[in-house]
């Protein structure tokens, strides 16, 4: 039994490494096929003033002439040693550029994930408890509407109302100028982006919790528990919730990268200095090295969390060992 466990772990690690490797090949190929000229990103307007020979020399120095396989090989050799090259646009080590921003994204995405996790569970429970009554129907209706509003428009709406009309909350950045260390100032700047992150995801998960509980509520053991004299509320909290919890946990493991990495749009609208704005800028200015690392980072997180979801399910819920993973849940594609 113990040996089997080690084999499973090795198997998963192998899968992880292979997936990340393929992902890096994919991202590298696509980014180098793009027609934009990275020379511009590196030298800006100065490219136009350079002579053709100088341009050639610069290309040679940046290694943009060699075949794709060689370029990838060199990139990979560097990457294994932790050297991801320099950002053409910032003219600094890619790692430094990302390190300066990642904290902000982790804060926004992490808080967003935590809030979504807790609120979705409560909302789902409440709706399942009040199934088909007025409260449930109203929440379902509101939820459907909020889940249909694109994130960027929701951001614009909140900006218009709270930053422009009412003037209560700041509309951009992570802190006011000169107040970098001020926690209260940072918190105020977080409110609007955080609201969008949570509202954008909340109903999708709450609705799944609700539906999962409604299936659970129709099981025979509920009838038995009721016959023994347990109250409806007790059965829901003690038995049904417990039955739904393993799949909720593995669903949320899959959701983690979606919420953490899905803050691109929100960050861009609020000019919040995080990985999202970085991804947006690097896509706009064809800063390949940076874009690659950002995509790889998010992709790796997704692959890791997917594997995690599969093993969480198996660990805590014996029923899932046979069916494997979070297959029962819909796959969220975007």
């Amino acid at each position, binding site marked *: 039994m113990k040996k089997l466990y080690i084999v499973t772990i090795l198997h998963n690690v192998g899968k992880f490494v292979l*997936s990340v490797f*393929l*992902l890096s090949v*994919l*991202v590298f190929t*696509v*980014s180098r*096929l*793009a*027609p*934009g000229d990275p020379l511009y990103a590196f030298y800006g307007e100065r490219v136009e003033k350079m002579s053709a020979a100088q341009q050639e020399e610069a290309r040679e120095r940046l290694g943009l002439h060699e075949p794709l396989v060689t370029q990838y090989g060199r990139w990979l050799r560097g990457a294994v040693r932790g050297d991801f090259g320099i950002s053409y646009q910032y003219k600094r080590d890619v790692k430094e550029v990302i390190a300066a921003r990642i904290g902000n994204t982790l804060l926004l995405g992490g808080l967003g994930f935590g809030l979504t996790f807790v609120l979705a569970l409560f909302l789902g429970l409440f709706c399942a*408890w009040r*199934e*088909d009554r007025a409260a449930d129907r109203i929440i379902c209706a509101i939820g*459907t509407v909020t889940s*249909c*509003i*694109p*994130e*960027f*428009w929701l951001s*614009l*709406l909140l900006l*218009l109302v709270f*930053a*422009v*009309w009412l003037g209560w909350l700041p*509309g951009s950045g992570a802190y006011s100028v000169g107040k970098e260390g001020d926690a209260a100032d940072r918190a105020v700047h977080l409110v609007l982006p955080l609201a969008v992150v949570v509202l954008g995801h909340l109903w999708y998960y709450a609705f799944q919790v609700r*539906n999962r509980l*409604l*299936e659970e*509520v*129709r099981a*025979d053991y*509920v*009838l038995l528990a*009721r016959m023994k004299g347990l109250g*409806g509320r007790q059965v*829901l909290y003690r038995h049904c919730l417990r039955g739904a919890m393993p799949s909720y946990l593995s669903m949320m493991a899959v959701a983690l*990268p979606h919420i953490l990495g*899905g803050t*691109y*749009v929100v960050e*861009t609208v609020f000019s919040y200095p995080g990985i999202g704005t970085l*991804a*947006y800028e690097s*896509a*706009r200015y064809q800063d390949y090295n940076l*874009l690659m690392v*950002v*995509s790889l980072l*998010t*992709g790796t997180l*997704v*692959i890791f969390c*997917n594997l995690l979801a599969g093993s969480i399910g198996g660990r805590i819920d014996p029923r899932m060992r046979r069916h494997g993973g979070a297959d029962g849940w*819909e*796959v969220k*594609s*975007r």
Partner: protein
Amino acid sequence: MKKRFPVLSLVVLTMIVVLCLSFGPVMTKDPLFMDLAHCNEAPGKEFLFGTDSMGRDIFSMIWYGGRISLTIGFLATLLSVALAVLVGSISGCAPARADGVLMRLTDLILSVPGLLLTVFLQAVFGRASVYSLSVVIGLTGWMAMAKVVRTEVMQLKNADYVLAARCLGGGFFHVLFRHLAPNFFPSLLFMAVMNVRNAIVAESTLSFLGLGLPVEAVSWGSMLSLSENALLSRAWWMLLIPGAFLSGTLLCLTNLGNYMRGSTNKRHSNLGSRK
């Protein structure tokens, strides 16, 4: 709870689609004409929904741009569904190892955040046009559907009638379209409707960010890309009106999609909290 047919959604959606497709007579102005004497004008008699910061009439742009948004949503979904049926059914019929490889690849593509993947592919295609954007969005939206098709095909492929059809000499595509497709069509339809929705969101988000259609090519998303000017000049109509049309369309599509998914939970709750 028996699901009621979403009549209102269907009516509203049909109206939006018809008005957008027959945009000519509906428009009161030329949507591309920049009337510099009337920039940032609030909704009024002459400009029903006001004008944007480039002096274009928003009422006309809504219909003209809606046509482009809807076209992209539709074309992208067409491509996604075709790819999903192809990959899903090949994977479902293939031997276990080939199936594993295909599914691993699908998972791999699924693991790159959708928006980034779209941005990436668009970079390869160069300057965005309606068709290139549809292709890019279509190429990034088939994975979830392919998984559903695969599951359905795997369940169906051993049915006796499929075996009979193969014995009679039916080829892969014959069996796929005559025998398998009709079976997975209902579950695919729900996902396809949701896919139209996702494609429209993707288009509008990209155009809004300035990574999709340029500002001169009018779509609901690119209309919103002038939002910074709108926020500065407090021109609420520039933000609220295109966004309301966009979200309204998405809501109608969602309601229709949810109806098609078929009703679940027909049995009574055992909790006994009702009555």
